[in-house]
């Protein structure tokens, strides 16, 4: 995170916005932009595409938990709901249910309804604190999962929907690896920038104030409940966009996408990366996707059962939570801090 701290608005006040972007962003940005030139389709579509989308859903949790102090396990449900709605209003192989409306109605409508649902869930969840927030959102996620599995009229039950494709906008096949890579990258960057921007806007600052001390915020005249509910709505929008893209990526949506396992995966991703900065969500997603994609091969090559990759992810999670409660970001910060110290005296080498 230390690299990103150069984003500090107060210190950077006198420079224009291009000069304010820290060098690390330029390097990473350039790398991501030119990646299709040297990376294969599998890396672009599966590894990077999935990282961006899972990262967005984890980002929505990071926003709630990191800035608002509210741990929601329903973020995957919002993503899934948006995916389902696109399938229901738009096109899929299940023509008996899918309405086949044009994309410019389907997508805004799906997102609006998802935000509405997130607002409703938030309105319920903000009445609780800590572990009870986790429980109530988990209960909602579970209820939605079982509902989609049993409801055939709207959600097509166990099977869900398939052949859900993105619109052929500008004559581009957005499911082709390179276009999809850029599509996912664009929305991931947009969501990331929006979260970063909001975190320094009065709304985001007040949300962090509410996280630290809700009573004092109320005494100062802030509407604590409104800030919390609005945070759910915004997080729901990010999760919804991620969910629609995720649905296009696999071209299908079914109850399996929104089960308890995936709901907890989102939490694991966010915690592995670190909740202190939005970049943590994408860092966590990258690690998670790598593990999920390659752990099976590694385990089999070691002569172990490939099914044990969940165990590997669990162990990773434990190790990170145990050694660095702030996730990989916290680990990075500590290593960097140690590097800046004089090995003999232990004093900081450069005191800024």
């Amino acid at each position: 995170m230390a690299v990103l701290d150069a984003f500090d608005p107060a210190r950077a006040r006198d420079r224009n916005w291009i000069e304010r972007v820290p060098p690390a962003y330029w390097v990473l940005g350039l790398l991501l932009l030119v990646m299709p030139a040297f990376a294969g389709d599998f890396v672009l579509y599966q590894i990077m595409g999935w990282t961006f989308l899972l990262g967005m859903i984890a980002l929505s949790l990071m926003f709630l938990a990191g800035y608002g102090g509210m741990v929601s396990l329903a973020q995957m449900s919002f993503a899934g709901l948006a995916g389902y709605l696109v399938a229901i209003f738009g096109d899929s192989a299940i023509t008996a249910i899918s309405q086949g409306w044009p994309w410019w109605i389907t997508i805004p409508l799906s997102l609006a309804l998802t935000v509405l649902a997130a607002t409703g869930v938030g309105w319920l969840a903000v009445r609780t604190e800590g572990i009870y927030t986790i429980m109530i959102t988990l209960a909602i996620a579970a209820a939605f999962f079982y509902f989609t599995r049993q409801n055939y009229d709207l959600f097509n039950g166990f099977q869900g929907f398939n052949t859900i494709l993105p619109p052929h906008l500008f004559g581009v096949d957005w499911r082709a690896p390179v276009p999809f890579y850029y599509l996912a990258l664009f929305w991931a960057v947009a969501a990331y920038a929006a979260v970063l921007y909001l975190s320094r806007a009065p709304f985001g600052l007040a949300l962090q104030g509410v996280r630290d001390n809700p009573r004092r915020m109320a005494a100062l005249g802030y509407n604590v409940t409104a800030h919390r509910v609005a945070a759910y709505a915004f997080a729901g929008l990010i999760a919804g966009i991620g969910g629609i893209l995720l649905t296009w990526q696999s071209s299908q949506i079914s109850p399996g996408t929104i089960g308890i396992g995936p709901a907890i995966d989102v939490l694991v991703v966010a915690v592995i990366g670190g909740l202190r900065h939005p970049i943590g969500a994408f860092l966590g997603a990258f690690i998670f996707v790598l593990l999920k994609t390659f752990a099976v091969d590694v385990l089999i090559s070691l002569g172990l059962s490939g099914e044990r990759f969940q165990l590997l992810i669990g162990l990773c999670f434990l190790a990170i939570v145990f050694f660095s409660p702030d996730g990989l970001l916290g680990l990075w910060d500590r290593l960097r801090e140690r590097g800046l110290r004089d090995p003999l005296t232990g004093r900081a080498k450069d005191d800024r």
Partner: protein
Amino acid sequence: MTAETGLALELRGVSKRFGALAALSDIELRVRPGERRAVLGSNGAGKTTLFNCITGDFPPSSGAIRFFGEDVTSFPAQERIRRGLRRTYQISLLFTGLSVLDNVYLACRGVSRGRFSFRRPRASDALMQTAEELVTTVHLQEVRNTRVSDLSYGQQRQLEIAMALSGAPRFILFDEPAAGLSPTERRELIAILTGLPGHVGYIIIEHDMDVALRVSERVTMMHNGRIFKEGKPAEIEDDPEVQALYLGGAAHG
């Protein structure tokens, strides 16, 4: 009961009970606008409880509180803040995950319009400017971008003061602001208090007699939830009853 006109703060028969414990009994207090008052008393005398009743952090069990002539007894804390009442807390109740500047900015923004905004403030934003000035006032400009959890105890106390000064205060309650400060910080604190604009009155709870007597025009002595003496600093210092109870050292907390 008619309100005495022209008072900043008026308490009539204010009592506060916690179960069987009478933390405040029948408190009568009158403070003029711009007046600087010190409240002294041993630990557990009820000083912080008095502040909590005045600010609305919790309601008194009985009695009435008027702020600039207006009966605010049943008002929630934010309504009193909106009317220009501020306080600092004895224990730190800051926003520990945010920077010094952001803490002050939130305090400034809370009393302004447009608290709920998605637009980032510009550097030229009036509230941001005010926040910067307040941070400088309490000598925290060097650490203005530091997270509050990384501040020293003394710096956190200074920040409490900056937050109390935000947004045109008319009357401020300082709860032991000098506790735990270094001699330098103590001198700075005295300078800040004596340098406040003349129309801003305050009550300061202070254990250190030297500080209390230098920053106040009148002193109120509390013991066991009651006010038992009120007067000019010199009178209080020389009062035998006060010396026996408070300055004797035994009850000093």
